[in-house]
């Protein structure tokens, strides 16, 4: 339980720091007599940034948790199951076919593609005989590559590669008032995930057992996938790709908390937020006054942690 409190303290501390790190100097003491300029910076840039980090970090981690439970594989996450790549293809299609579409329409198209991609991945999983834990994420990544090659085909044809990759590159520096509000829509999805947490836990015990216990297995799996695709497409549109997040955070939390989702969903959310906040602040400090984008810092720290988990598990199994 101690660790839980530590996490929450870290969350508040980092959020507080995050508000006061930036090119324009604002110190905590200024809070009592803000000039108009400082007030504006806080409401237009710093607060939206903090809020979007908290929402994106926690919701993506929860998505990873749900996916790992449903596929019963610790290495599956939106990035290793083709969800992110499909959402990216959706964004490309929306750019090509409906160039005038607003954020909501783009999100709807990206969501449809992400959902379709995730369902295809689950169908593939159903059909594969050889269910090695390591093999399944490999299949997911190959599947993601294929979807990616379709995106490249059209992106290359219409000269959209650089604009897509810069748009979907994870970066919080572009988050300002008026551009991040879409993220709020993912909060109801996360609440839904919390309400159904017990059923996801049961579904994770396998179809036979779940059905025996009176669960409508198919419906729960579909609900989980819909939540995952929905949240991933919102995050990819507003913030960009955050690699590894849905993979690492749930893994660390389940090491301490076990596989009961009801118990681990809250720590996962807090841990995800803390992790993203930490990476973001780091990226803002290292080459101050410039910034390193979040997907790079998460990519480096995340892959180090992931390799550690992977090799640690390898040693444990032998």
């Amino acid at each position, binding site marked *: 339980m101690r660790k839980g409190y530590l996490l929450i303290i870290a969350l508040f501390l980092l959020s507080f720091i995050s508000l006061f790190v930036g090119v324009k100097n604002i110190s905590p003491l200024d809070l009592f007599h803000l000039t108009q300029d400082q007030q504006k910076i806080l409401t237009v840039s710093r607060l939206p940034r903090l809020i979007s980090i908290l929402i994106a970090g926690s919701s993506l981690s929860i998505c990873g948790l749900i996916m790992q439970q449903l596929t019963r594989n610790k*290495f599956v996450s939106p*990035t290793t199951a083709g969800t992110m790549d499909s959402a990216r293809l959706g964004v490309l299609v929306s750019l090509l076919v409906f160039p005038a579409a607003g954020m909501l329409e783009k999100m709807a198209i990206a969501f449809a593609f992400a959902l379709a991609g995730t369902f295809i991945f689950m169908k*593939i999983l159903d*059909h*594969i*005989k*050889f269910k*090695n834990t*390591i*093999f399944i*994420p*490999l*299949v997911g*990544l*190959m*599947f993601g*590559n*294929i979807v990616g*090659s*379709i995106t*490249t*085909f059209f992106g*290359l*044809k219409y000269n959209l*590669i*650089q604009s897509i*990759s*810069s748009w979907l*590159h994870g970066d919080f520096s572009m988050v300002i008032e008026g551009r991040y509000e879409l993220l709020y829509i993912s909060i109801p999805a996360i609440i839904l995930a919390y309400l159904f947490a017990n059923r996801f836990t049961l579904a994770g015990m396998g179809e036979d057992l779940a059905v025996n216990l009176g669960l409508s297995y198919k419906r729960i799996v579909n609900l989980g996938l819909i939540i995952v695709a929905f949240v991933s497409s919102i995050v990819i549109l507003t913030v960009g790709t955050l*690699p*590894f997040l849905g993979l690492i955070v749930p893994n660390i939390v389940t090491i301490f908390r076990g596989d009961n989702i009801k118990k681990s969903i809250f720590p996962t959310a807090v841990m995800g937020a803390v992790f993203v906040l930490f990476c973001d602040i780091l990226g803002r400090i290292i080459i101050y006054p410039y910034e*390193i*984008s979040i*997907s*790079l810092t998460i*990519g*480096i720290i995340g*892959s180090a942690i*992931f*390799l550690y988990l*992977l*090799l640690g598990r*390898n*040693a444990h199994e*032998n």
Partner: protein
Amino acid sequence: MKTKLIILVTITAAIITLFLFIDMGGYWGYILTRRLNKILAIILTGSSIGVSTIIFQTITNNKILTPNIIGLDSLYMLIQTVVVFTFGANTLTMMNSNIHFLISVGLMLVFSALLYTFLFKREGQNIYYLLLVGLILGTLFSSISSFMQILIDPNEFLVVRDSMFASFNNVNTQLLLISSVSVVLIGLYFLRFIKYLDVLSLGKEQAINLGVSYDPVVKRLLMIIAVLVSISTALVGPITFLGLLVANITYHFMGTYQHKHLFAGSIFISIISLIGAQMLVERVFHFSTSVSVIINLVGGLYFLYLLLKESK
């Protein structure tokens, strides 16, 4: 078996002649040399990718993996991006192509050697761990290069973009010489190992039982794969799914487990598919797309088909 090989040889010869002599117009001396260069590049990359994939699939005992997925493609992209990012696009175009080629190949080899030694040091390693670790590093490389690609000036990005896709349109004649020599040398070295592969395809335990010293042989084979893949990638650019496509068509068409036949078949089949894709790019798409995009698309769909078929 002989008839099948003869069929393949005839098709290959036919498609090469078609490619060389279609739409000649005037200036046939100029056109012919350019097309011959393309053919040579296609033969080099096709045979190295086909052979390396079959070796890799025999070692891993799995028919839907390709050696490219251990992150070599992303590393290649990272090298190109870093060069353009730090020295500007002119450097990449002006740089002595031999040096550039050697640097790219060298770095990719160092990477694979590090990966192999790191993983083989651990007791009881599993080849899938090697792949997953390679994939993760690949993701890391591509997130670094995508970060740089955003900062690059759009005009310079075009240069990076060109190297993102394999293309036979501007093959460098100087590079052809170096790479043919190295591919031939590595091929000669590889001849000694062909006899082990039939045994290796029985699985690790069986192979050891039958007297193959498993670890040293597999290590050498993995190094051969790394050299072949690096050379072909540095010569034309990454074509991730070519190996997958070619190897599986080969197993299906040849219907044998003898590797000498498989290798011969895979070389011809990859040449046929590359020339076919190149002709599609030239005649149907009028250079608006690239060979690797077509191959990845077809290969990717074929991969999905294989996955679903395997289950039945």
